[in-house]
C-alpha cells in the first residue's frame, strides 16, 4: 500500500511540476512576445508607412491566424457595414443641414481640403492611411474613407485645426512675446479674414421627378462617393442605396465643374475678346 501511495504522490508531484512549468513557460512566452511586439511596433512606426513591408518572425507566423478561422477577424470587420447596408436610410432636411454645417466648419470653402479634427504626428509621415484609406467606424465614431485615391504626404494638404504644439505636464502656458524692432508704430494684431468661401452646392438637378440627380459638385479629389455618401456617411448625405457601387453609371458629373475642356469655336472667340484683359496686337514702344 505504501508503495502504491508513494507512486500516486510521485505522479501528483510530477504533474504539478509539469503544470507549473507549462504555466510559467506560457506566461514567459507571452511576455517575450509582448516585449517583441512593442519593439516591432516601434520599428514599424519608424519605417516609412506603406513603403517597407514588416518582416515576420516564426513566432509571428505561429501566432498568426491559420486554418479555417484565419480570416475571421477581418471578415467580421468587413461584415460591419453589411449589417447596415440594406437598412432603410432616413433622410431629413435638418440632418442634411447639420451634416453640411459640420462639413463646412472644417473647410475654408467647398472644395478646400478639410482640416484635421484630431492630433496629428508633426514629425515624419503620419499613418493617416491606416484609418482613412478604407474608413473605420468604431461605435459612433467614423474615420471616413478618404474621398480621393491614397497619396503619400497627407499633411501637405490636411493640417491640424488647432495649435499642434504639445505642452508637457508641469510646463506653464506659453505667453506670446512680441519683439520690437524699431517700428515707429506698434505692430497691429493680425486681423480677421473677410473671406467668404463658396458654400456647399445645392442638390443636383433631376430631369424629371424620380430621375437620378446629377452630381452638383466637382468629382476631382472627390472620386470616391462612398466617403460622404456611403454607408457610414452622415445622415442627410448618405445614399439611400449604398450597396450600388458604380455611382457615375446613373449620376452624371458636370464637365464645367471638373475642368474638362469644353471647346466651342464661339466660346474660344469670346474668351479671346474679353476686355479689358484682352491681348492687344499693338507693338512694343
Amino acid at each position, binding site marked *: 500500500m505504501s508503495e502504491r501511495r508513494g507512486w500516486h504522490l510521485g505522479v501528483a508531484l510530477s504533474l504539478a511540476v509539469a503544470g507549473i512549468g507549462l504555466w510559467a513557460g506560457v506566461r514567459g512566452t507571452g511576455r517575450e512576445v509582448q516585449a517583441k511586439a512593442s519593439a516591432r511596433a516601434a520599428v514599424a512606426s519608424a519605417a*516609412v508607412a506603406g513603403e517597407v513591408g514588416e518582416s515576420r518572425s516564426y513566432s509571428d507566423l505561429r501566432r498568426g491566424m491559420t486554418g479555417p478561422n484565419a480570416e475571421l477577424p477581418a471578415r467580421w470587420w468587413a461584415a460591419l457595414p453589411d449589417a447596415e447596408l*440594406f437598412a*432603410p436610410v*432616413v433622410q*431629413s432636411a435638418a440632418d442634411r443641414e447639420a451634416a453640411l454645417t459640420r462639413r463646412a466648419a472644417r473647410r*475654408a*470653402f*467647398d472644395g*478646400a*481640403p478639410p482640416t484635421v479634427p484630431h492630433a496629428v504626428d*508633426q*514629425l*515624419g509621415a503620419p499613418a493617416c492611411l491606416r484609418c482613412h484609406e478604407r474608413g473605420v467606424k468604431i461605435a459612433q465614431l467614423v474615420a471616413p474613407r478618404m474621398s480621393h485615391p*491614397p*497619396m*503619400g*504626404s497627407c*499633411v*501637405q*494638404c490636411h*493640417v491640424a*485645426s*488647432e495649435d*499642434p504644439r*504639445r*505642452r*508637457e505636464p508641469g*510646463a*506653464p502656458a*506659453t505667453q506670446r512675446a512680441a*519683439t520690437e*524692432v*524699431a517700428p*515707429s*508704430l506698434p505692430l*497691429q494684431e493680425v*486681423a480677421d*479674414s*473677410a*473671406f467668404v468661401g*463658396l458654400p456647399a*452646392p445645392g*442638390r*443636383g438637378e433631376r430631369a424629371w*421627378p*424620380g430621375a437620378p440627380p446629377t452630381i*452638383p459638385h466637382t468629382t*476631382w479629389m472627390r472620386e470616391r462617393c462612398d466617403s460622404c455618401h456611403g454607408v457610414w456617411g452622415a445622415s442627410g448625405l448618405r445614399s*439611400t442605396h449604398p450597396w450600388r457601387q458604380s455611382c457615375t453609371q446613373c449620376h452624371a458629373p458636370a464637365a464645367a465643374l*471638373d*475642368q474638362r*475642356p469644353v471647346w466651342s469655336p464661339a466660346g474660344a472667340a469670346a474668351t479671346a475678346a474679353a476686355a*479689358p484683359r*484682352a*491681348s*492687344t*496686337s*499693338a*507693338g*512694343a514702344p
Partner: protein
Amino acid sequence: MDRREFLKASAMATAAAAAAQLALHDQAAAQPTTARQAPPPPAPPPAEGVRWDKAPCRFCGTGCHVQVGVKAGKVVAIAGDQHAEVNKGLLCVKGYHVGLALYGKDRLTQPLLRQNGKLVPITWERALEVIADRVLADPKGFAIYGSGQWTIPEGYAAQKLIKAGLASNQIDPNARLCMASAVTGFLSTYGVDEPAGCYDDLDRADVVIMWGNNPAEMHPVLFSRIVDRRLRGEKVELIDLTTRRTRTSGFCDRTLLFTPHGDLAIANGIAHLLLASGTWDKEFVGKFCNFRQRTEPPTLDGKALDLDGYRAALASYTPEKVEELSGVPAEDLRYLASLFARRDLRITSLWCMGMNQHTRGTAINDLVHGIHLLSGHFGRPGDAPTSLTGQPSACGTVREVGTLAHALPGGLVVTKEEHRKEAEALWNLPAGRINAKPGYHTVEMWKRFSTPADKGGDISTIWVQVTNPARTLPNLNTLFAPSRTLPGKFLIVSDVYPTATAMAADLVLPSAMWVEKNGMFGNSERRTQQWFKMVPPPGQARDDCWQTIAVARKLFERGVPGMKDKDGKFLFQVVDAAGKEVPIWQWDSYYKVNVDEQLFNEYRRFSRHKHKDLAPYSEYVKARGLRWPVVQTADGSWRETRFRFSKADDPYATKAEIQFYHSVTKDDRALIWFHPWEPPPERPDRDYPLWLCTGRVLEHWHTGTMTMRIPQLRRAMPQAYCEMNRDDARALGIHSGEVVVLESKRGKLELPVWLDGRGQPPPGTVFVPFFDESLAINLVTLEDYDPLSKQPDYKKCAVRVRKKGAS
C-alpha cells in the same frame, strides 16, 4: 409636440416609408424620401455665377497652377489645375488657401504719409509728388528694393526706371537673400544661370538626394510627386542630408545628419572616392568638362586645373577625414559615393536654402554640380542637379529680368560694354546712358541706409516693393533698425498689409496683389506663367507696376532727362491697337491696354542673348506656363524645352549629345570646381554654445504677412517656437512649452520651446522658423555673406539659450 418629438416622429414616418418601398421594390425608392415629401424647386447649378480662370499660386517657387473661382468680384474658391504639368491638379495647404490671402481685414487701402510720427492718409497724387521730390533731391541715393514676388512686368518696369532712367543701378531684390548662391553656382559651372533639368526628372530619378532641404514642408507638391511614385509601386530611394531631422526625414531611406558647413566636406569626400575607386565617368568628363579651382579674391571664372591637380586637391578628403569634418560616418559616405559610381541609377539632387544661405554658398553649389558632372549623372531624364527656389518669380523676375545691382535683362551685365550697348539699343537709349558701375547688393544697400550720410551712408531713400525687410534682413539691429531714427533716411513701402516694414515706413503705398492685377511669374524649372486680373483691388490699392510707371511719368514731367529715350519719348510709352499713346500713368487708363503684354513683349527681345528665348505674350495666355528656351518651330508653333544642353531636347545643343553652349571656357564644356572645406565665420564657443538654424514651416510662407491672415493656416501653426534637442532641454531644465531667452552676440529673443515637434535637432543645435512677424529671429542672425553671391547665411550662427527668469 415639441421640435424634438416632431423630428423623431417624422423620421420614423420616413423610415417606415423607406422600408415599405424597399420591400415593394418601388421604383421611387432610389429617390431620397425628402424629395417626395416636399419636392424642392430645381436647384440652380452651384457653379452658376462662379467664373473660373487660371493663375499660378502666389507662394513658393514650385509654380503650381490653381483654378481661381470668382463670384461677384471676390475670390470664393481655389482648386488645383488638372491641366497644369507642374502640379497635375494637386496643391498644398497654402495653395488651396491662397485666395484667402486677399481678404485679411486690415488691407491697406490708401496711401499714408508719416507726419509728426503718425501715418496719415494722403492722395495718390501727393504720394507720387513725395517720391519725385526724394528722387530729385538725391537721385544717386535713391534705391529700389524689390522681390522675387514681383511679377515679371513689375520687375522689368523697376529695372528700366533705375538702370535706363536714373542710370544709377541701385536696385536689388530680396531674392539676394534666397537664391543668389544658386545663380553664382550655375554661372561658374555652366556659364549661364538656371537648372538644365526640370520637374520631369522627379518622375524618373531612382535616387533623390536632398542637400539641406526639407521639401515635405517647403516644396510639398514636388515632394509628394516623388513619394507618390512609391504608392504606384515604383522604387525611388530618398536620401536626406540634413542638420536636423525634419518631416522629410520620415519619408527617407537614409537620414545623414551633418554638422553645419559639413556639406562642403561631404561633396569633396564623394568626389575623392569616385576618383580613388576609378568609378568616375571618364568618358563624360573627357568630352564635356574642364577642372577649375578658385582664385584669391574669388571670381566666377577661377583658374584652370588639370586632372592631377584636381586629384591632389581632393587627396586629403578621405572618408575618415570627412567624418571628422562633417559628422557623417565614413561608411555612409562610401555608400553615397557608390550610388554616384553606378551609371544604371539616375540621381537627382535637390537643394534650396540649405546650400544657398551659406557663407560658402557658391562653393557648395559648384561642388554638387561637380559630383554630378564627374560621375556623368547629368543630361538624362532623372539625372540632374536641380536647385529649387523659394519665391514664385525669383527665377522669372530676378534671375531672368536681372533686377540685381549688377545685371541687365536677359543675362546681360552692366560691367560689360557690349552688354550695355545691346541694352541701350533695345531700350532706344542714347549711347552711354547705362552706368557701368554696379549698385549695392542687398546687405550693402541696407547697411548704407542704416549709416549716417556723413559716415558713408550714401543711400538716403529706399522704395520697397512686395517684401518685408524689417523681418527678413539678417541682424536687424544693424541693417534695419538704425535707419528708422537717422535723419534724412526715407523709407517708402508698397504693400498690401501693414507689415513690420510698412509700419516703420515714412510713406506707405497700398498695392494690388495676385489676381487683383495682370501678372506673370517664372518658376524654378524655367517655366514662364501668365494670368489675368480677376477681381478689383480694395479701396485705392493699385498695381506696383502702375506705381513705378506713375513715378517715372512724374519725373518725366519734372524734366528728368533719363525718363526719355533718345527720340524724346517717355520710357514707358504704350500705344493702343490704333497706334495712339495711352496715358497709362493715369490709373483710370492703366487697364485700357494690356500693359503686361506690352512690357513683356518688349522684354522678351532681351531673352535671345543667353538662349533663354521667350515666346510672345499671347502664347502664355494659352498655356499653363512654358519652359524656356521656347523656340518657334517650322510650322509656326512654339515649343518649350525640358532638358537644356541635351541634344535630344534642346534645339540649341546641336554639336554633341551634351553641349554646354554658354561654357565659361568657350569650348562647350562645363566646369568641375574644387573648393576646400572652410570653417564658418562663427562657431559655437563657451559663451554661445549652440548652433542656430532658421527656416520655414509648411503652413506659412516667408514672414507670414499673408498666411498668418488665413485662419486655417494660422490655427494650424499660430506662432514661432524654438526647437531643441531633448537632452539639451533637460540639461537646462526646460519643458516643452516654456519660454526661453535665445541670444547671440547681435540680439536676443524670447520664445517658447517645442520639443519633438516639427523637427528634431541633434544635440547642440536649435531651430527657429522665421514666419512670425512678432517673434523676429533675424534680430539674432548673422549678416556675413558669400564673397561671390553676397547672400547671407541664415542657417548657422552661435547662440545661447536659457530659461526665462533663470540667469
